[in-house]
């Protein structure tokens, strides 16, 4: 019950809740908008009305998703002033980047979304396609800028601390901080992967149900082609990201792997598949390990040194359970997606994915339906690892989380957090019900007819 009286902890919980809710919608906005742009581009190129139908059908779902994505994102922006005012006042770089994001990305998305969704009959097809592409560009730039801001918190560069404030001395270094490129790539691929698995999963569900099987075989095939590229790429980028974490944030890495003791020279560090870490006694109660693998992964040598948590003062240890297990969820999901992509690719090679044979691939289709929810688990797992693993720092090595929170009365934060749970819960439930309704209705005949030429106004 102490948590109810600790306003810093409540502010952290509130931010975590807001971020976890928001991201589950925004990853879809990024990827599904791109998917729609691809479909629309294919339609303009081939004139095949199936592609036009797909662009229209998925737009309807995108709009529902966009609405809730926007209103759940708004509180996150204000949270930096509401709950993290000392951080806002101290670290000006974060505000500059957020400001830049709103100017360059959010308005681009919002300014063209109207035409993308409602403007089919009001502008010529090519101008419509341009609007769709601007929405994609806007949402992709959002990913870029938010990752610039977040990666700077992971590996702050280009700044000096002066009179209690963090002053930027070099914007290029601060923006292109050491963590930026790899984590932006990892996150962007996560958006694409989640979206293609959701689009593929929904398409597989329609094929399984025998509804518009030929229509959805098309979107399934597009999802598959994307998966064949993205799933292996993500595993590779994820591995590179892990090596960067080891270099930049050794405490996070050690917590992610429940790695307590630095391996002595000549001995390899083992990779732990599962364990029960004990923070108080600084050891694992039990662990299932694969010898040498952790050293191999991080140093490309079977006996390379990997620093253990015990090498760092205990007050710099992140909460270990919340870093270790979410990381495993993400990694296992990543490999599951790779397996699914390879399996599907193999069936494709065998010719089993042609529209008339696809409905026979029952198990494969069920696996795709299951992969959608798993993709969300991977995204959430990855972000929990990234943010909890950075603790006790808000800005790694520069600002502690405990000194960055607004001195709000705990009761006020508890009330806003409770309110947030109620409202986000209500709206998410409504979103699920309404998206389910749209899916149950399926595409209508009009979605197979190309739009009329815009009226001469």
């Amino acid at each position, binding site marked *: 019950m102490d948590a109810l009286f600790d306003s810093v902890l409540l502010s952290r919980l509130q931010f975590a809740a807001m971020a976890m809710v928001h991201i589950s919608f925004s990853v879809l906005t990024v990827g599904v908008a791109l998917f729609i742009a691809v479909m629309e581009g294919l339609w303009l190129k081939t004139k095949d009305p199936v592609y036009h139908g797909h662009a229209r059908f998925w737009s*309807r779902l995108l709009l529902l998703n966009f609405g809730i994505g926007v209103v759940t994102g*708004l509180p996150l922006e204000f949270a930096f002033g509401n709950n993290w*005012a000392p951080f806002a006042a101290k670290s*000006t770089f974060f505000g*500059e980047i957020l400001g*830049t994001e709103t*100017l360059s990305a959010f308005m681009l998305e919002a300014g063209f979304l109207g035409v993308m969704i409602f403007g089919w009959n009001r502008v010529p097809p090519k101008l419509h396609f341009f609007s769709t592409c601007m929405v994609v560009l806007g949402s992709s730039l959002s990913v870029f800028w938010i990752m610039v801001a977040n990666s700077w918190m992971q590996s702050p560069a280009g700044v000096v601390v002066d009179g209690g404030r963090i002053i930027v001395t070099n*914007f290029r270094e601060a923006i292109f901080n050491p963590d930026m490129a790899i984590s932006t790539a990892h996150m962007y691929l996560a958006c694409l992967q989640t979206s293609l698995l959701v689009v593929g999963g929904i398409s597989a569900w329609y094929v399984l149900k025998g509804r518009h099987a030929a229509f959805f075989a098309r979107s399934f095939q597009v999802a598959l082609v994307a998966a064949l590229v993205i799933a292996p790429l993500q595993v590779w980028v994820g591995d590179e990201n892990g090596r960067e974490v080891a270099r930049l944030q050794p405490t996070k890495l050690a917590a992610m792997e429940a790695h307590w003791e630095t391996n002595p020279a000549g001995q390899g560090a083992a990779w732990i598949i599962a364990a029960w870490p004990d923070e108080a006694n600084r050891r694992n109660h039990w662990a299932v390990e694969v010898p040498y693998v952790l050293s191999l992964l991080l140093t490309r040598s079977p006996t390379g040194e990997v620093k253990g948590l015990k090498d760092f003062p205990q007050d710099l240890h992140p909460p270990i359970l919340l870093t270790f297990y979410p990381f495993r969820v993400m990694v296992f999901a990543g490999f599951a997606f790779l397996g699914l992509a390879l399996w599907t690719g193999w069936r494709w090679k065998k010719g089993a994915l042609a529209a008339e044979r696809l409905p026979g691939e029952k198990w494969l289709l069920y696996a795709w339906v299951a992969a959608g929810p798993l993709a969300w688990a991977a995204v959430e797992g990855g972000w929990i690892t990234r943010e909890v693993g950075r603790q006790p720092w808000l800005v790694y090595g520069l600002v502690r989380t405990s000194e960055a929170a607004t001195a709000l009365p705990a009761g006020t934060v508890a009330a806003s957090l409770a309110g947030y749970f109620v409202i986000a819960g209500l709206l998410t439930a409504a979103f699920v019900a309404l998206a389910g309704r749209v899916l149950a209705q399926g595409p209508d005949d009009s979605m197979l007819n190309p739009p009329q030429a815009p009226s001469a106004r």
Partner: protein
Amino acid sequence: MDTLQTYLPDYFFLALGLILFLYMATDGYNLGLGIFSLASRSEEERGLMIHSIASTWHASQTWLVILGGLLFGAFPVVYGVAMSALYIPVMLMLAGLAFRGTAIEFYHEAPNRARWGIAFGLGSLAATLAQGFTLGGLLSGMPIVERQFAGGFGDWLNPFSALVAAGGTAGFVLLGTTYLAAKSDGDLRRRALKTAALAAWAVLAGLALILLWMTLQHREGRYSLLGLRQGHYIYLTLPIFLFEFAMLLRSLKKAEQDKPYQWSVLLFLTLVVGIAAALYPMAVPPGLTIFDAAAPPRSLWFLFAVSAVLLPVMLAYNAWQYLVFRGKAGQEDRPGH
């Protein structure tokens, strides 16, 4: 460069004023329309109102997001202080906007439209009131110690901010109904114009009460906007305001097409200019100036470059989107319908 640098906080003061005005002029009519929709006489009518803003409300709301982002970037101390002090009204505003926004998207897909219609109306009302209290709370002044808010978390709730909230609500209803009058026909249009006239008088009454309150407060020697160095500048905008008010009433009486909305927007512009002139160079009254609150020079230059390039571009494509959706609202554009 050094002389230019001293003007950077002024530039951001102006830019933020412009964005606040753009937010009020655009999302103001969305929110006002939402409040007016609570008085709609049929579900069909409400559907038309919601549809008339469905294609542009994202962009309107994004001005608020930009207002926050630019304030955070240019005046981080103000962002921290104001958002802490206004924690409760900001949370209420976010809750209102959450219902308002999702209701717009969900309404046409929902089996029970009335429920989302009410969420749209009440969400708009809550957000509008909360924004009024936020602005009123900010103008009421905030004590600051070491770059942090040092007052009470209930300070925003006072007679002055309540007057601002009431006046602001009337103002948004004015924007919403004059906008709706341009987008609709027949009985709905007639009622929108009638409500607009009532709202216009309520705005005038609200403004008179606010000025009266400030003048009385000032005499007692307590803090008010008028206590600032240029506080009396707010009186200078009054003649312009009254002229625009008369023109608005005239155009409402003649039931003109787009003019009532345009005069209402000008009223808001005059108000924003008046407040800005009275406030300058304060960022948070009574003591924090924009020069004390500004981010370090290098940061300001960065954000200056970004915003000076992007603001005109944003204005251009926003204008284009409005152009695409000009004319009376119809149902023909909905996806899947």
